[in-house]
């Protein structure tokens, strides 16, 4: 489903070097590694937000990719509900509210992001990714801002999602356990 071949990327100093991996159609794959080991870079390359210096990413042409960024990236001039409707305008408000409900955000549906806590914004960003839907879900540190209870909620959702989709999650959270753990090595920094 997603074939990564000899992927290399550097920003002056190398971040990813000759990385290859085959991801099947579904399952939860956890990317681990120290800060700066290239987890986020790999997700950005798969999402098409960066171009590799070398190597290739093979995926079906029509594959729909849904992302949770490290930052919530909610638009500040829209309510949570509007932020969700923005990414999937053909879906109904009821569907959006149902997704917000999953993450205990229904009460906050009409609130603006700047009035919410970091954890609520992070859950809203996850809800947005689910509402958008897709074949491949790329989630970057989805439990970083969450307390244990909410993190558990997100992990359960991720596992459910992985039964039918490919979920690749970059995390430092030991509570997230996937079908496979991919440890990215720290690249040597150029002096």
């Amino acid at each position: 489903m997603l074939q990564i071949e000899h992927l290399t990327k550097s920003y002056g100093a190398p971040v990813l070097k000759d990385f290859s991996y085959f991801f099947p159609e579904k399952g939860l794959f956890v990317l681990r590694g120290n800060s700066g080991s290239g987890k986020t870079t790999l997700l950005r390359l798969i999402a098409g937000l960066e171009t590799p210096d070398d190597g290739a990413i093979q995926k079906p042409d029509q594959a729909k990719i849904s992302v949770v960024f490290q930052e919530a990236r909610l638009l500040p001039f829209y309510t949570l509900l509007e932020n969700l409707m923005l990414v999937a305008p053909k879906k109904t408000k009821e569907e959006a509210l149902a997704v917000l409900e999953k993450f205990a955000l229904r009460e906050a549906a009409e609130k603006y992001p700047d009035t919410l806590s970091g954890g609520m914004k992070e859950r809203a960003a996850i809800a947005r990714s689910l509402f958008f839907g897709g074949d491949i879900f790329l989630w970057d540190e989805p439990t970083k801002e969450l307390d244990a209870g909410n993190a558990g909620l997100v992990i359960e959702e991720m596992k459910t999602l992985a039964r039918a989709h490919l979920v690749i999650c970059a995390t430092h959270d030991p509570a997230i356990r996937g079908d496979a753990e991919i440890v990215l090595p720290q690249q040597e920094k150029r002096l």
Partner: protein
Amino acid sequence: MKKKLVTAARILAALVFWGLVWQLCAAAVHLEFILPGPIAVFRRLLSLCRTADFYQTILLSFLRIAAGFCGGILAGVLLAFGCAKVRLLDALFSPLMAIIRATPVASFIILVLLWIEKGRVPAFISFLMVLPIVWQNTLLGIRSIDRQTLEMAKVFQITGKRKLFKVELPSILPYFLSASKVSLGLAWKAGVAAEVLALPKVSIGTMIYNAKLYLESTDLYAWTIAIILISVVLEKLFSLLFRGKGESHAAN
């Protein structure tokens, strides 16, 4: 509600204080054609308010200045989008806008009087005052849409018109609205100044000029207060019209 009453009382107290200072100064000068007292001025203003000419004069001045203001807004926004997309346009217009901003409004009025019919000068001057402010702020807004927001739009397939109307324009709106609000007051003041020099047939500026010419200082002060009141009303109307729109909502 209580807070609003306290604020209103504070403003009223300040106005009464400065009114008393004005009255004392007028009493000390004791020459009405140099400094009429506030009571005489407000009486004159009230008598002006009872005439149809007063409203006709204000309406015509307003229409001229509003035409220039709207033209400046439209041209400023379109040019800002053009300059954001085409570097050559930016290179051409940046120095021009800097020159317009740096040129004294009186110089412009005199120059423009040589170029166009005097009735159109106030509108053109308002246009010139509004254009660089709206252009600069809108351009700043366009350039301030951060990379993270654009990446979010890309991954969630928000493209084309939807991206423009749902992501880019709302991001620019706070910059545009603050520029419009600032330039509204400026257009009004510069427009009236242009009327004073251009003397269109029916205008506030002409009334001010005539009052000065015939040493009718009470009229001069009454019209000046009318200009201030209209400026305040316009700003309040603008704020009311766009209340809640384009608020920055701290970035997440």
